[in-house]
């Protein structure tokens, strides 16, 4: 897959999924604390989201950051627009703005403070970007 094809695949994934998270690892086994926390916040709001692991190929992160003009991972997109990384998502979660932006009602049992996220897992086996975008 050429760099250009990777960028096209990323752009398509962003436009095809209302809520999409680019992260290190997968939602079930995040490989970075910031990604784990972001997943935990989305799960606390019980909002469905697509996830792409950037670790299997360094070009995914490179092309994503070139596209989004955002240097760090994770990156959360809503309806094609970058909402932010872990810091912004945490701020928005705690103010209630994240639920509003995503158009979900926060469940009654959602914690007021941003949840810490689960334990970090060892990096999962390499997987092609095609599979993650399905």
């Amino acid at each position, binding site marked *: 897959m050429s760099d250009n094809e990777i960028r096209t695949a990323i752009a398509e994934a962003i436009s095809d999924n209302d809520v999409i998270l680019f992260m290190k690892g997968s939602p079930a086994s995040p490989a970075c604390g*910031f990604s784990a926390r972001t997943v935990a916040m989305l799960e606390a709001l019980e909002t469905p989201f697509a996830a792409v692991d950037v670790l299997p190929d360094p070009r995914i992160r490179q092309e994503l950051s070139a596209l989004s*003009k*955002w*240097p*760090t991972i994770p990156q959360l997109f809503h309806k094609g627009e*970058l*909402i*932010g*990384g872990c*810091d*912004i998502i945490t*701020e*928005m979660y705690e103010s209630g703005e994240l639920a509003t932006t995503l158009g979900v009602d926060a469940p009654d049992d959602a914690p007021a403070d941003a949840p810490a996220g689960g334990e970090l897992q060892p990096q999962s086996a390499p997987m092609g970007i095609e599979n993650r975008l399905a």
Partner: protein
Amino acid sequence: MSDARYPVLQMPSAHEVKTRIEAAIPGAQAEVDTADEVHFSALVRAGAFEGLSRVQQHRLVYDVFEGELGGAIHALALKTEVS
């Protein structure tokens, strides 16, 4: 004296991070903390943030350290406010 043959990797101090943010963004005031000189947290207030989304505000700060995030600066936890 440093030996030119063995350049020392310059680790930015919290003060340097603060100074660079304030120099790059007009009217910005930054409070910067670091426990280990590689992970930083910063609260940046600037009039220049007026009318910008959070993403745009953070981009202005990230741009100050282009190429250094993930390198000498492992992580920069950021909070921005309009002053």
